[in-house]
């Protein structure tokens, strides 16, 4: 049901900030609810605190760079630290340093290429890999990464280790990173525990946000600039029995009201749903289950299943620039639909009932569309219906 832009500020049950109701009894230790599927619900910030409590005082949480080059550090000093931590003598500490050094693990001689599989290996993994490489050599003419692989790798690693220019943008130690996966379009994002839900909402790119409504065959030049995202601003997240509605703008409506009314009208077997304002909550405030599907709904009826796949403490090697979060690390590569005529440019128009087009619907890029359907003066030729088209692959 498409909503119109009438504002509807009066919504029941949303008086100020409301704490979400925990579904479990405040037990914040993540454990499987269903093995290998999802955990029971727990409070994110409390979970973070459980970890931080265990690691306090140690160097595990530090985001500072390690002292450069372990060989450079004063070995005497290090031995003393080892002796203190392990309760052994200094000589033992020095001996340990020698015995457990990394050189004891080296299997390749100097100058041996780490990329080449050694000849006489017993390792099964290498045997498998060797066969695969051989197969690739025999069947492929050019052996390199395809676009999708490069794209996927870039996505995963483009922000790794980035430090912000402005130190105020630095993430704090002990911050939590949630890994948030959305379906259709399939993408995975990292979001900080301290970030608001609205920040995530803004960064989810769904093609339905870009749609332009209306038929423009008669006035192709006047395709409006307004995209749906600007027109229909309402959205909600559903986590653990609570609907978090976006209420930042006066046009935003409570989309969840319909659902709540439906569930309350008869005894449907659902508990009492709550509503809350999306902009008032950060991820740290939520009670969620890891691995459990939740919902994000916008544009009235565009729904996406979202799953929190992981929560962990921030690490020195992560992207440490707050402003870059929510950070997309995985995205589905979508093939863009090309113009039917030139097969080169991405389609910007779609036509129906088009006498010029060989198929219905048919996609055209802007240039080919005008060349085919309009004469030199811009008069419409023939009969057709034309709609602006935004391809999902535009986000690649």
């Amino acid at each position: 049901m498409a909503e119109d832009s009438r504002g509807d500020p009066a919504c029941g049950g949303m008086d100020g900030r409301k704490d979400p109701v925990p579904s479990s009894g405040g037990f914040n230790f993540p454990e499987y609810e269903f093995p290998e599927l999802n955990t029971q619900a727990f409070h994110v910030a409390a979970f973070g605190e459980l970890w931080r409590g265990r690691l306090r005082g140690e160097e595990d949480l530090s985001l500072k760079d390690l002292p450069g080059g372990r060989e450079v550090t004063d070995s005497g000093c290090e031995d003393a630290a080892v002796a203190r931590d392990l309760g052994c003598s200094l000589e033992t500490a020095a001996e340990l340093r020698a015995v457990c050094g990394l050189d004891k693990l080296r299997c390749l001689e100097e100058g041996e290429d780490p990329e080449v599989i050694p000849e006489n290996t017993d390792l099964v993994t290498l045997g498998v890999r060797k066969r695969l490489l051989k197969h690739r050599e025999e069947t492929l003419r050019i052996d390199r990464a395809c676009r999708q692989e490069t794209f996927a790798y870039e996505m995963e690693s483009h922000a790794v280790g980035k430090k912000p220019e402005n130190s105020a943008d630095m993430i704090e130690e002990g911050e939590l990173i949630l890994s948030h996966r959305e379906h259709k379009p399939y993408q995975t994002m990292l979001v900080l525990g301290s970030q608001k839900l609205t920040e995530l909402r803004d960064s989810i790119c769904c093609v339905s946000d870009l749609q332009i409504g209306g038929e423009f065959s008669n006035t192709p030049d006047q395709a409006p600039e307004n995209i749906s995202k600007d027109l229909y601003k309402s959205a909600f997240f559903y986590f653990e029995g609570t609907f978090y509605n976006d209420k930042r703008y006066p046009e935003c409506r409570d989309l969840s009201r319909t659902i709540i009314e439906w569930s309350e009208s008869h005894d449907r077997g659902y508990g009492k749903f709550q509503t809350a304002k999306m902009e008032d909550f950060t991820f740290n405030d939520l009670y969620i289950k890891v691995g459990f599907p939740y919902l994000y709904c916008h544009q009235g009826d565009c729904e996406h299943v979202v799953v929190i796949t992981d929560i962990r403490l921030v690490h020195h090697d992560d992207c440490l620039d707050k402003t870059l979060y929510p950070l997309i690390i995985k995205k589905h590569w979508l093939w863009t639909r090309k113009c039917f005529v030139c097969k080169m440019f991405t389609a910007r128009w779609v036509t129906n009932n088009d006498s010029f087009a060989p198929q219905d619907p048919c996609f055209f890029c802007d240039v080919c569309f005008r060349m085919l359907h309009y004469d030199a003066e811009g008069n419409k030729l023939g009969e057709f219906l034309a709609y602006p088209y935004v391809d999902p692959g535009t986000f690649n």
Partner: protein
Amino acid sequence: MGTPSGLKDDCEALLSRFQEMDSVRFEDFAELWRSMKFGTIFCGRMRNLEKNTFTKEALTLAWRYFLPPYTFQIRVGALYLLYGLYNMQLCQPKQKIRVALKDWDEILKFQQDLINAQHFDAAYIFRKLRLDRAFHFTAMPKLLSYRMKKKMQRAEITEEFKDPNDRVLKLITSDVLEEMMNVHDHYQRMKHVISADKSNPEKSLDLIKDDFFDNIKNIVLEHQQWHKDRKKPPLKLKVKGGEEKSERNSQQSERCERAESLAKIKSKAFSVVAQASKSRRHRQVKVDVSDSESGQVQTKTTRKRKNKETLKPAGKKVSSRDRDDMQNIHMEDKSLNLSMPVVTEEDEENESFSETEFTAPKRRRKQRTKS
């Protein structure tokens, strides 16, 4: 990606060889690592994405062996394996090891055990991994995405690496023994009281062996002593208190009547050994006629041979035979009995093997499947 093919085999090969070494020293592990050239597992022109996924999977796999219910030695081996994999990986920046909150306390306890038992090399390595910030502190061990369609691969626990069940120990605890002794005494006294001749009980009431409970007690004590002796010199392993595997002694004592007859059958069957298939030919069992030897505890080869010698073919109720062997051993010279035979159970406790016989049972299983 699921676990890359062959990786599990390689890790288990490394860990089981480490287990055979019967040591928890990093030097021994490193030697094994170098001899297997395990560090080359990352070689082979993997492109970046594949390198990342492979390394992640390798670390996850190795991590599993670091947690209970695996034996102490396997867990230390897994720690060394993690150390090796983490430092030899080719990814830049390095892939991290995921630790879930629910496992962390167990890990810390393990580290404390290491320090208490003075296994400084293992403790040093764990400390080093922490200092290198090799860990990601997470909610759950792996990413969960509600994959209902994918068949859930239950991680199989490699049985040979597991701590053997100590259900028997739970059965014959020192309390139980004491109680049994008391009951026995009481019973004897009752017999005296009700029989006509006050000094000797009726012959018709002679329904049990008089020294039954003494036997049990002796067996249990012998077994505990054996364990202690066995563990002390080669390892500085912390003996887990009274909770030692006094395995299956109850069954032994129950079947001691059949011991002699079965022993004969077993020794005959012993001389026959199945031919291992080509892929397992490096594990071919050799029947070794050398006598069980005196204390060359350090030589691993002799021990291996001894293990092979005590290999059991597929058969029933072998435990009684072990009692026999045990007597033999104690009659010989007190060598750290590495030839202590394994008591294997053919019923559902099948999977619990004694610590000495890690390689043997595996071979035995192989034989069974072939016959």
